[in-house]
């Protein structure tokens, strides 16, 4: 397969002598592929996207898009990319139509081609009837959709979406995920960043897991799950509001427990076998004076992978 994006040994730090926001990251994205970068907030996902999109200069390493180096030929790179930033980068005082026209002009479109694109994108995001309304009057979900449409103007070869579902309602989130899937089916190459494990699992052809600026795992969903072997995951909900962290620590010494982490009122326990460890896990909780309200058994997933690789939950 042809690599549309090549990232080689990318380093980025914002201040000389400071910590690396991106630390020796390498990956490729193939044409027509949906590649997700999964990692917690502050992991370096946006920095990677900003470097590929020519907004930031790499401290070291090389990044090529469609064969063009981002440092040597940034304009050529900009011509083939579309970016949907995390922020709603729109002009509230302009209408939806005016926003699309402005951003289309900035991408070099004009005349009939621009008008055609605007009409097409408005229909795509189902905002044709609100085209003449100012963006300031739109709901958060409508703004997100318009934000996506702007990124698609000019039908870029590579579309980069930086956490497009942050802070929106479930209905709009669903809409966006379905929309991304449709784009993928149309053959658009997509780089998608998220800290939601479920989104990465649902959408991606391949996933890169990034933490503290380092790409700690890369592969298809199946390949990543293989990393944790045939392990399973227990999710314990406690009656008590506190004590989760203490339980997670205590479970570390239980035979068959690979890792445990307390987060958001639940304790996630990565185990070799649920059958062999469940009784011991509950006994440790009881021994600490904690009552287990509910237990769920999960198939190995990206959460388990992240826990396995970092010792922390993805949501930490």
């Amino acid at each position, binding site marked *: 397969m042809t690599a549309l994006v090549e990232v080689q040994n990318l380093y980025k730090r914002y201040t000389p002598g400071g910590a690396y926001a991106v630390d020796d990251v390498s990956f490729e994205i193939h044409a027509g592929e949906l590649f997700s970068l999964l990692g917690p907030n502050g992991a370096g996902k946006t920095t990677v996207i900003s470097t590929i999109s020519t907004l930031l200069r790499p401290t070291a390493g090389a990044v090529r898009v469609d064969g063009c180096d981002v440092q040597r030929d940034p304009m050529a790179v900009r011509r083939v990319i579309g970016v949907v930033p995390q922020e709603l*980068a729109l002009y509230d005082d302009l209408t939806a139509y005016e926003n699309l026209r402005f951003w289309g002009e900035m991408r070099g479109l004009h005349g009939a081609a621009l008008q055609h694109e605007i009409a097409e994108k408005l229909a795509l995001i189902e905002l044709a009837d609100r085209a003449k309304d100012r963006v300031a009057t739109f709901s958060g979900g409508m703004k997100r959709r318009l934000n996506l449409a702007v990124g698609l103007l000019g039908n870029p070869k590579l579309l980069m979406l930086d956490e497009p579902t942050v802070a929106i309602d479930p209905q709009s989130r669903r809409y966006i995920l379905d929309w991304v899937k449709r784009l993928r089916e149309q053959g658009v190459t997509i780089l998608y960043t998220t800290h939601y494990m479920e989104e990465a699992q649902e959408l991606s052809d391949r996933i890169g897991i990034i933490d503290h600026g380092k790409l700690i795992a890369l592969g298809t969903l199946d390949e990543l799950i293989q990393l944790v072997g045939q392990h399973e995951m227990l999710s314990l909900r406690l009656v008590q509001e506190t004590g989760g962290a203490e339980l997670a620590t205590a479970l570390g010494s239980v035979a068959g427990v690979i890792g445990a982490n307390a987060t958001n009122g639940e304790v996630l326990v990565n185990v070799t076998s649920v059958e062999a460890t469940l009784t011991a896990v509950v006994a440790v909780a009881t021994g600490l004076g904690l009552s287990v309200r509910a237990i769920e058994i999960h198939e190995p997933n990206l959460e388990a992978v992240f826990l396995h690789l970092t010792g922390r939950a993805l949501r930490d």
Partner: protein
Amino acid sequence: MRKLLVLSGKEVLVTFRDVGALLMMLATPLALTLVMMAAFGSGSSTPISDIPVLLLNRDEGAFGQRLADVFFSPSVGNLVTATLVTDETAARARVEADEVAALVVIPADFSAHMFPFGVRAQELTGLDVTALASDTPLTPEQQAGLAQAFLQSRTPANPVVVEIYASPDWRISTLVVKAIVSQGLEQLNVQIAGTMQIISRLMVEMAKAGREPADLAGGLQSGVAAHEAAGLPIKLSITSATGRGFSWLGYYASSMAVLFLMFAVTSGGRTLLAERQRGTLPRLLITPTPPLVVLLGKMGGIVLTGILQMLILWGATALIGAYWGYPVAVLAAIVLLVLCASSVGAFISAWARTPGQAGAIGSAVTLIGGALSGSFFVRWNLPQWVQYLSLITPNAWGIEIFGRLQAGRAPSTILPWLGGMILLTVIYYALALVGFRRQFK
């Protein structure tokens, strides 16, 4: 070029859709101009000191000298520094060279117009009637002479003109000189009225004593009343060396426009930081548009907005009577002033870290610059060092240039000022460029 225009057009559209911005850019300066006009009137007056004035007294009578003496009287104090001159051409040249505020020309027949009876009485009797008291003993010849003088004296049909030939660069001072001349004329008039009352009483006494016909005394009394009713047969005329005097309305129309132009452009500059924070600037920078075009488009929008703002304020204040000067020169001054103001806005945006910081610095710079340069107080009344210091602000250059144009100065006289403003623009934009390079490195 197309992208530059699209970027600038977007900027203007966004600004003119913002009700708050319109209120700040247009409504507030107009309202403040009207308030200033209401407070000071559309004419002018203001306290000042040591105004250099030349006096040319062509009058050979006592009243011309008395009017000239007013400029040296204790009541005027140190308000003016007057010098008597005889060479009119040289005196007018000094005014035109802005060496002095004004030349006051007392015409040759000033006394004859001011007090024709007194002049004739002095000719016939040798008496200075203004020095008479009600109990001054008069000889029968003097009494007869006074009566004859009254019968022979007539107020001239056309009033005589005291001219104040004023320098357009001494706008406020001219008005002070006018006030002093008016005060002097009023003093002379009061003196004449008092003299006429005394003469009238003397005549009545003479009539009672049977020394003069009763109809003469009656005629004298009615003559005194007519003199008081008619007022001064003197006309005061201010002639500017360029044909235009100072006007509060014009001054505040332009100075307020400049002040609020500064508010608008510093606020416009702040939007660059706001766009960065909101994410639209990074999004622009990853479109296939060179960063310089993005920056120029943004600044172009701010400049276009500023020019539109100034044109609207020029038109609106002209409708209420403000004169700004020769239109082509005003237009050129507006364009260069807006460029200069936008350079300060760019400079602040380039070095501030956040939109809030840029807003605070922009407001402080605008208000302090406004105070230093004469947006709140008449510029030419400020100490000289303040006037020099204020030249670091576009406000000062704008007010100077518009002041000159409003005074009727030839457009060519503002060329050095326009040049200075261009230099200031280049300096601020160069400093802004350094800041932007630092920000977007």
